[in-house]
C-alpha cells in the first residue's frame, strides 16, 4: 500500500515537472489581459479570480493576469490597441489575439474548471 502511494505521488510529481518544463518553452511572449470597468459585477470579479488561479496553477509565475481598468486614462492606449468595449478576457501572443470573454462569463461561476482548461488549451495553441 505504501509503495502504491509513493508510486502515485511520484507519477504526479513527474507530471507536474514535465508540464512545467513543457510550458516553459511555450509561454514566452504570451500576455493575458482582463479588461474591466470601475464598477464591477460579481461575475466580473469571479472571472478575474478564476483566470488568475488558472495561470498560477498551470504556469506558476511565468504568466500573470494583467487586470486593467478600461476607464482609466492611463490605459487608453491599450484599450484602443485591442479595441476593448466592455469586460474582456484576452490572450495575446505577438499579433494573435484570442477573446475568451464569452466562455469566461458563461463558466466562471458555474464550472470554473472548464474556464481554466479553456485558458490552458488556448495558451498552448498560441
Amino acid at each position: 500500500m505504501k509503495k502504491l502511494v509513493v508510486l502515485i505521488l511520484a507519477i504526479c510529481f513527474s507530471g507536474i515537472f514535465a508540464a512545467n518544463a513543457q510550458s516553459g518553452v511555450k509561454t514566452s511572449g504570451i500576455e493575458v489581459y482582463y479588461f474591466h470597468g470601475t464598477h464591477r459585477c460579481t461575475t466580473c470579479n469571479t472571472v478575474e479570480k478564476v483566470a488568475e488561479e488558472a495561470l498560477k496553477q498551470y504556469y506558476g509565475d511565468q504568466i500573470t493576469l494583467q487586470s486593467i481598468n478600461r476607464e482609466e486614462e492611463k490605459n487608453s492606449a491599450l484599450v484602443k490597441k485591442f479595441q476593448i468595449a466592455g469586460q474582456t478576457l484576452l490572450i495575446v501572443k505577438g499579433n494573435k489575439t484570442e477573446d475568451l470573454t464569452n466562455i469566461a462569463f458563461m463558466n466562471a461561476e458555474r464550472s470554473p474548471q472548464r474556464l481554466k482548461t479553456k485558458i490552458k488549451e488556448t495558451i498552448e495553441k498560441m
Partner: protein
Amino acid sequence: MDFLQNLLENTQIPLFSAFLLGLMMAISPCPLAMNITAIGFIGKDLENRRRVFYNGLVYTLGHAISYSAIGLLFYFGASQFKLSGFFQEWGEKLMGPVLVVIGLFMLDIFKLNIPGSGWIKEKMEDRDNSGFGGVLLIGMAFALAFCPYSGVLYFGMLIPMTISSPTGLYLPVIFAVATCIPVIFFSWFIAFSLGSLGKFYNRLKTVELWVRRIVAVLFIAVGIYYLNIFFI
C-alpha cells in the same frame, strides 16, 4: 441560471439562443432592478387594468426598438469598439439621474418650465390615459441600462449572432420579448387576475394617487442606488 446556460450551450438554433440570452438577461441583477421598477410604473394605472397589460406590451415594444436599433447600427457597420464602448460606459451611469428625474416629475416636485418639460411630464403621468408614449420611452430607455454582465450577453453574444446574416436581424426582437417576460407576466397578472381586488381599487380613486407616489419614490430609490454605485 445554470439550467438556462446548459440549454444555451446545447442549442444551435439562433432563435432559441436569442430567447435564452434574453431570459438570462431578465434575471441578471441590473435588468432585474429595471424590470421591477418598470412593473411599478406599468401597474400604476389601476383604474384601467386592461391598460396595465397593454402597458406591459408597449414596454416590451420599447425594448425591441432599442435592441433592434443598436443591432441595425452594427449591421450597417458601426464600430463595435466605439458604440458598445459608449453604451457600456454610460448606459448604467445615466440610469441613476434619469430615474431620479422621472420620479421627481411624478411626484410633482418639478414645476420648472423647461421647454419640453411639460411634454415629458404629460407623458410620464399620462393622466388622461390616452397615449402609451411614456411607457414606450421608458421601455426604450431601460433597455439601454447595460451592466457589465448584461453587456456581455448583449454585445458579446447576441450582436454577433444578429449581424452575421440579414436573417439574424429579427433576433433582437426575440431577445427583447424574453427580457421583458417578467414585466409581461406581472402586467398580465395585475390586469386579469386581481379581479376582486381591482373592484375594490376602483372604488378608491385616491389609491391611484398613492400608487403613483409610491412608484415615484421607487424610481427615486432605484435612481439613488445607481447614483451611489457610480458617483459616491
